């Protein structure tokens, strides 16, 4: 069996002492930033990108991935105990989770969140193992026209799921694509948009840009708000192991959450956030008896927490098989691969099997570590909630500076970061989401390259994108998505849905 052979390769990589350690560091950091409000997995992955270069690519990706799914576990702790979502994807968990905590049932809420996440993590890992090889096989057949249309479709989906105005989100995608074109053009050798700076010859440094947008500009916005949102009363925890009755009662919800989360994670633009919200909405509609949602129903914790973990993990599928990021964290994983000289796409699986399977197996191991980290040690995490933001943000600033500098030992990248920090602040003030921009930035060069190649093959006829059936299908899907968001009824729903984030 190929599958077992592949998994064997994966275990061989993931179970080395070094990689176990990096996996542990990843999930530990992930839990930490998940628990702390005000710093999230995207910021953390951005901050650690430059420091992961010193590691072999396998270890680097294993650690960065651990941060992302680890944060989904940590986020629920804060949501349940203090009624503040530690992560955006835990927002809906606060609704029933904190009610449970106030009724003295914080323990079972935390327990079911961790166990549900673990179950979802295991299922999602199996799903990746099964879905990735055939997807990569299909993607290998894609020519430049198909690739171009696939990327367009992915970017449109990212737009649809961004908050706020669709026009602004498309604008941010285009702006990201343009930023991605800065630097030497591979075909002609012309240096584009370098404004006379030699430091821009290799383009805008991805690390500097992402740390500016997800680290520094968020700090500026947070500092602007007067006074700190003090963490309120921390609820008493008690026994964290849920009873059998609780588990039996929740099991259907965990299953539904896992299923829905897995599907939403794969879709471009998806991931943990949308998965959690959709799962909660679904539970409210179909769970029987529906009586207690919003009033401390344990299923209202189980479903979204399973869903966000499933979604976090299955969002690796398009990233690993197609090289298409579905959310900013995945964009950073792609950035990490590129910095290690690996070009993302369907070839990664065949050319770097140790990286591919090692990463997947490490997710399962990481999930196991997370249950241990989160259930018995939850008390320790709670203490961290007392770290005030005024002591946290100087650390973020300094890590961003050191990170931006050490990628290329270039002072210029620090100034690039400073520039984009101001730009990012303006964007946040104008309600222009940075997520579409980062996705566009990563895809910019690939999009141009495939566009050029497709047009070259078709001798300059743009009809090629409509004549190739697969390409046409992607474009129709993209157009359909755009039309759907533009419809007033759906628009109203989307606004309500994304408002609650």
């Amino acid at each position, binding site marked *: 069996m190929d599958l077992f052979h592949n998994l064997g390769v994966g275990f061989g990589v993931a179970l080395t002492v070094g990689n176990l350690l990096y996996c542990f560091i990843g999930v530990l950091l992930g839990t930490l930033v998940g628990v702390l409000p005000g710093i999230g997995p995207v910021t953390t992955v951005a901050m650690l990108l430059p420091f992961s270069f010193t590691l072999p690519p396998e270890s680097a990706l294993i650690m960065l991935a651990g941060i992302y799914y680890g944060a989904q576990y940590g986020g629920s702790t804060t949501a349940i105990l203090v009624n503040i979502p530690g992560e955006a994807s835990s927002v809906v968990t606060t609704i029933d989770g904190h009610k449970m905590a106030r009724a003295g049932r914080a323990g079972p809420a935390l327990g079911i969140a961790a166990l549900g996440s673990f179950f979802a993590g295991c299922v999602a890992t199996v799903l990746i193992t099964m879905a990735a090889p055939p997807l990569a096989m299909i993607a290998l057949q894609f020519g430049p026209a198909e690739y171009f249309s696939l990327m367009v479709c992915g970017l449109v989906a990212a737009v649809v799921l961004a908050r706020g105005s669709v026009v602004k989100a498309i604008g941010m995608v*285009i702006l990201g694509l*343009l930023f991605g074109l800065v630097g030497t053009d591979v075909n002609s050798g*012309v240096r584009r*948009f370098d404004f006379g700076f030699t430091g821009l010859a290799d383009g805008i440094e991805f690390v500097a840009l992402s740390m500016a947008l997800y680290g520094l500009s968020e700090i500026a916005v947070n*500092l*602007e708000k007067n006074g700190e949102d003090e963490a309120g009363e921390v609820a008493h925890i008690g026994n964290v192991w849920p009873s059998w009755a609780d588990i039996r009662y929740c099991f259907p919800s965990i299953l539904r959450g896992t299923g829905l989360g897995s599907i939403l994670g794969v879709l471009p633009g998806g991931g943990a956030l949308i998965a959690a919200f959709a799962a909660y909405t679904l539970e409210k509609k179909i769970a029987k008896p529906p009586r207690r949602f919003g009033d401390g129903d344990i299923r209202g914790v189980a479903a979204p927490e399973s869903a966000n973990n499933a979604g976090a993990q299955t969002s690796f599928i398009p990233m690993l098989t197609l090289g298409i990021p579905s959310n900013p964290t995945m964009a950073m994983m792609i950035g990490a691969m590129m910095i290690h000289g690996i070009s993302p796409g369907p070839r990664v699986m065949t050319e770097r099997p140790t990286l591919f399977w090692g990463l997947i197996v490490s997710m399962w191991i990481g999930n196991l570590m997370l249950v241990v980290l989160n259930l018995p040690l939850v008390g320790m995490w709670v203490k961290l909630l007392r770290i005030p933001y005024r002591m946290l943000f100087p650390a973020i600033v300094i890590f961003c500076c050191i990170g931006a500098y050490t990628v290329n030992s270039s002072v210029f990248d620090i100034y690039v970061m400073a520039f984009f920090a*101001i730009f990012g602040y303006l964007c946040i003030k104008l309600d*222009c989401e940075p997520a579409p921009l980062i996705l566009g930035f990563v895809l910019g060069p690939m999009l141009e390259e495939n*566009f050029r190649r497709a047009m070259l093959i078709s001798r*300059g006829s743009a009809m090629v994108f409509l004549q190739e059936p697969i390409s046409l299908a992607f474009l129709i899907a993209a157009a359909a998505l755009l039309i759907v968001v533009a419809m007033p009824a759906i628009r109203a729903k989307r606004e309500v849905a994304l408002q609650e984030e």
Partner: protein
Amino acid sequence: MQNLLRSKDFWSGIMFLAFALTGIVVAHGYAMGTSNKMGPGYFPVALSLILGALGLVLVVRAFFIEGEALSRFRLLPLILMTIGVVVFGFTIEQYGLVVATVLTIVIACLAGRESGWIEVALIAFGLAAFSVIVFHTLLMLPLQVWPDF
């Protein structure tokens, strides 16, 4: 008019237009090529045109639909933090990690305004020590630690 100048949509449109205009002006200098064999200017100009159109839509729409108004700007934290980052860039190569870290943190803490001087000193020296141990000693990144005279 008052509302227009406070509209988020309006200023987003202006920002897009500004970037689009820069894109077109700069990329105009690159060879355009033909749709068959595209030059380095083709794709950026095409993107800039789309961006400009989107910016125009936002600006025009802001005249008719009253969107959300800008919240108040408090620029001091942003400016101080950015100065801190730039100071790090100025000092890291000549004066080393310790000096750069302490200076940057002191400036960044001014942006926070909530820490007392003793706390600032503790954070600054604590983080400087942490950075040296983790980034220089453990990760062996190419960083100068002490000033270079």
